[in-house]
């Protein structure tokens, strides 16, 4: 089949002052747009142009920081445009990535306590919980059905950022099955560390405690940002997620959550993860069938 990527129009190039090039691949979020962003970012990184400072792939756009004293702006723009042109005329390269199981305690007491402090004037429906509201606006029966929909299909890390190590997640399902929930009316000044949140069509995991505007559904059981690099999964880098990672949420009970905390304290916790090859065309042709294949990689780990 023809992938949707082939029909994406050319990207829009614009400058963020004298040190940033911004490449908007698409105004709207879609899997092909994100895939194209990651492809451009990957090739630009491989090109190792002197003067490139940061390459930041985002959901549907790319931000490149450069040192104009070394790399003149027009030269950078030309290089990125060439990569984009080259991508349009070539077969999609599959993404070598990994699938990771992320244990989540849904409807936990930590996020519930913080939610209680930010109701009137902050939330659309101050009298209910965030998850009840999310179920309602997605025309689902109840919180349980929303939780089911949230963890039964995997998500793609479409961007890492906002604060250190925070993954933005895009669920690998057809657009009509995407969960969409408005952000809080006004951002909270507090969000528990490791809150599993949702705003618009994006899920996220808050890597650190702080401000936030996403609805709160639960708390991830294990760290995703570890400056001390104490756990084995952080041996190479303090940030766990990379764009292109695939995340499968796994609901856990309070007892399972506590058992994981004990493993973390003992320094023995490891994420269940497996390498996978992700092909855009397969994901678009039959999302749920392809997701089953991807998730099989986690069996027997």
């Amino acid at each position, binding site marked *: 089949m023809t992938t949707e990527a082939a029909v994406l129009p050319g990207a829009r190039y614009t400058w*963020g*002052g004298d040190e940033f090039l911004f490449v908007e691949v698409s105004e709207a979020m879609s899997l092909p747009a994100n895939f194209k962003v990651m492809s451009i970012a990957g090739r630009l990184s491989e090109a190792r142009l002197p003067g490139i*400072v940061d390459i930041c792939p985002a959901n549907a756009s790319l931000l490149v920081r450069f040192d104009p004293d070394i790399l003149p702006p027009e030269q950078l723009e030309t290089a990125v445009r060439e990569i984009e042109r080259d991508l349009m005329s070539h077969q999609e390269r599959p993404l070598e990535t990994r699938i990771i199981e992320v244990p989540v305690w849904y409807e936990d007491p930590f996020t519930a306590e913080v939610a209680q402090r930010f109701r009137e004037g902050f939330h659309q429906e101050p009298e209910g919980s965030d998850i009840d509201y999310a179920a309602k606006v997605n025309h689902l029966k109840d919180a349980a059905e929303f939780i089911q929909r949230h963890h039964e299909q995997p998500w793609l890390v479409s961007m890492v950022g906002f604060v250190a190590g925070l993954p933005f997640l895009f669920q690998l399902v057809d657009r009509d099955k995407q969960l969409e929930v408005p952000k809080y009316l006004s951002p909270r000044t507090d969000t528990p560390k490791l809150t599993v949140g949702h705003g618009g069509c994006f899920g996220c995991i808050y890597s650190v405690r702080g401000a936030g505007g996403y609805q709160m559904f639960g708390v991830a059981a294990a760290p995703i940002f570890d400056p001390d690099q104490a756990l084995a999964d952080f041996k190479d880098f303090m940030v766990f997620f990379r764009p292109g990672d695939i995340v499968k949420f796994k609901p856990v009970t309070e007892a399972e959550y506590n058992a994981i905390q004990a493993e973390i304290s003992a320094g023995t916790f490891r994420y269940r993860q497996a390498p996978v090859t992700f092909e855009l065309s397969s994901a678009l042709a039959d999302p749920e069938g392809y997701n089953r294949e991807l998730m099989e990689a986690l069996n027997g780990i």
Partner: protein
Amino acid sequence: MAFEIGNPGLATTVQDQGRTGHYNVGIPQSGSMDQYSAELGNALVGNTAREAVLECTYLGPVLTTDSDAVIAVTGAPVKVKVNGEPRPQWSRLLLKAGDQLAFGVIQGGTRYYIAVQGGIDVPEVLGSRSTYSLGGIGGFKGRKLEAGDVVPVGAPLNDGKLPPAETVPEEFRPVYAKEQEVRIVLGLYDHRLTEEGLGNLLNGEWKVTPVADRMGLRYSGPGVSWKEREQPFGAGSDPSNIVDAGYAVGSIQIPGGTQPIILHRDAVSGGGYAMVGTVISADMDVVARAAPGTETRFVAVSLADALEARRDFAERRNKAWAALGANR
């Protein structure tokens, strides 16, 4: 040697030229907000531009040195006191072991810098000593200083050689005015503003609000209007929303069209608000010096003008180092 912190001040942090290469995972640049002032402090004490300094915000610390030390205080105007006696700013000061350094009330601007020969010697994290408080990395234990902290100072560079000049000449010191012109390059999502909205941005009087810190500065003023549109999938419902994207450091976003925010060195690396322009690199230090109440005009310049301003700024900086007889 080390500085012992008696009173930490409002928000005193270790900073250097900042940390690049990790913005793609949300770790911001950090570093001294007013790079120019910080590095001239380094110049006075025989350091290179790379050594770490203490950044003091409004209310400085009270500290005691455990050894003889060569220091300089640069940046926003403030009374410097050694053992209670006034000492000049923008000048090299010699401290004896046991001397106490303290500060009066800030007279303008926002931040001043304590540079010390040898630099503040905390461990580098991801290639920098700068503090990123939100992520708890870099600087002194990843946080602002607290009473009782003992902050290590490095060994002198170049066998302790100091530059011939002891004072930064007046002409090379920044101004701390109540009015500022800040040059910006329009772009990113400026096409989403109405003509009137763009007019307000460029012709309006904007004032720095008290909501201003290392992450960004918020301005009050006439507000701007956005073009109505059917929002793209995933972008959120307000016309100032976009699908979450990377934020350029120095970029200006205007959530809801009310108060522009200029993102600075500890900025969040991305989010869902449309940016309409970016402060040129040569003016980022100028923005850093803006205290609440500063009247600000945003002046649109071309990318070519921004690059020329960047060259002029580098030249001015190099001349300042040369005036001290120091090597950057």
